[in-house]
Every structure is written in structure tokens, then in C-alpha cells.
């Protein structure tokens, strides 16, 4: 299995993915709890909610997230990017603790530890793994034993 290690620039992109996603979701939640109940019979009110300030701020953050996320997926596996960027949830929780002075329960500290361990698992492995067709392509490109013997 090839060890596709990441450059500092690529880690920076993963950090942007990790931070923008939870912050964007928080803004969306703040905005959507402030609007009246939306029924499936009036889907147009969902579109109107998009233009409220908190939802608009959430969408701006999620656009930043999406651009970085696409870049990350172009050089790393989906099963690497998703757990690695879940560390953003830990960053938001720690900001809430040390910046906003919120109380973090034992349950939440357990969550922080589990996410950190999970991110550690993927971060020590390759960002992109070989696929069946990668191996087949490499075998086609590489000379066979008979060809080497000639």
C-alpha cells in the first residue's frame, strides 16, 4: 500500500474543511430555529429562509467548506477525508469551553477523546489507497517476468 503523505498545504485545506462545516451548520441551526414552522405544502418558504442573515452566513461558510472539500477529495479518499475533518467538532467544543466559558460534560469530553483517537487512526495511514483498477493499471504498465527475462 503506497504511503501518500500530505503536505502542510494539504493539512491546511483539511483544517478549513473541518472548521467551516460545523460553524456553517451552527449558523444554519440558529437561523432555522428563528423562522416559523415550514410545512411540506409550502416548500417556497424554505427558499425564503435562505435569505435570512444567519442562514445566509451559514451558506457562505458552507461554500468555503465545499471548495476545500472538493480539493481534498481530489487527492485523498472519502474514507480518509470524512473522519479527519470530524476534528472540527472538537475545535468548536474547545472554543465553546475556553472562549465562551461553556461547561463541557464528562459525556462530551468522552466524545472529544473518541474523535481525537479516530482522527489519529486515519491520520497515521495513507490519504489515498490503491484501487483494484490502480493495481490492474500498474500491472499492465509494468513489464512481465518474461519480458524482463528477454
Amino acid at each position, binding site marked *: *500500500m503506497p504511503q501518500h503523505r500530505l503536505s502542510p*498545504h*494539504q493539512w491546511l485545506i483539511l483544517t478549513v474543511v473541518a472548521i467551516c462545516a460545523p460553524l456553517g*451548520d451552527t449558523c*444554519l*441551526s440558529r437561523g*432555522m*430555529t428563528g*423562522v416559523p*414552522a*415550514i410545512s*411540506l405544502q409550502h416548500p417556497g418558504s*424554505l427558499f425564503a*429562509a435562505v435569505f435570512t442573515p444567519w*442562514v445566509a452566513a451559514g451558506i457562505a461558510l458552507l461554500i468555503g467548506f465545499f471548495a476545500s*472539500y*472538493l*480539493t481534498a*477529495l*481530489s*487527492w485523498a*479518499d*472519502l*474514507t*480518509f477525508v*470524512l*473522519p479527519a475533518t*470530524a476534528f472540527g*467538532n*472538537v475545535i468548536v*467544543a474547545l472554543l465553546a469551553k475556553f472562549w465562551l466559558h461553556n461547561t463541557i460534560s464528562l*459525556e*462530551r469530553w*468522552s*466524545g*472529544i*477523546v*473518541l*474523535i*481525537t*483517537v*479516530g*482522527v489519529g*487512526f*486515519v491520520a*497515521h*495511514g495513507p490519504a489515498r*489507497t*490503491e*484501487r*483494484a*483498477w490502480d493495481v490492474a493499471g500498474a500491472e499492465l504498465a509494468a513489464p512481465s517476468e518474461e519480458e524482463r527475462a528477454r
Partner: protein
Amino acid sequence: MMLPIQHGETGMWAATGMISAVVLLSTAGEVLTAAAMQRIGDLDKIRAHSGMKGAIKAVVTCPLFFAGVAFLALAFFSLLFALNHLDLSLVAPAAASLTLVTNAVAGKIFLKENVDRRRWAAAVFVCVGVYLLAH
């Protein structure tokens, strides 16, 4: 689609349906987008070679990318709908943690990613961790 829901007293089945819709649509969108980006290749290299315009052109001329974005847009509106009827403390941890597991399964089946024991363990640890953190 008609769900028997009222603001503030959403039933269990309606809540399950809303969260399942977010999870399944997100998974479909993320797998299609990942497949598109794998087909396009390293965006940093494309940008270094052809500039930002070249990188944007490479992305917007890939049909798989638009299929992925369409599913992600549906997932986004289903998330807005769910947030309007359910508490964030239920929707966020449930959707985020379940999506990690469904993506690991979908990544192995559809993208043929080599999901080894380390990645399965990471998916499960992060899944439980996100649930505990946001619950």
C-alpha cells in the same frame, strides 16, 4: 411525500424518516462527488498547470460532479426541513455520525476504496464521538 408532523411534537417515525433522508441523500451526494474528483485528478496540480480557470473548468465539465451536487442540494434542503421540526441536539449528532458509517460502507462498495481495519475503527470511533459530543 406527506409526513404527519407538527412543529414541537414530531413523531418517532417522522423523525426517523427525516434523519434517514438527510443521511441517504448526503451519502449519495458525497460518493458521487468523490467519484467525480477522483476522475478529475489532483486539483492542486491542475491549478498549477492550467491556473484557477483550468481547475474550475475541469470540475464544471464533469457530469458526475453535477449529479453529486444535485444530491447534496437535496440533502441540504432535507436538513433545513429537519432542523425546522427537530432539535439540533438530535439531528446534528444522528445525521453526522450515521453519515460517517454509511459513507465508509458506500466508499468500499462504490468507490472500491481500501477500507482497512484502521479506517473502520476510525469511522466507528468518530461516529460514537460525534454522537457523544453533540448529544
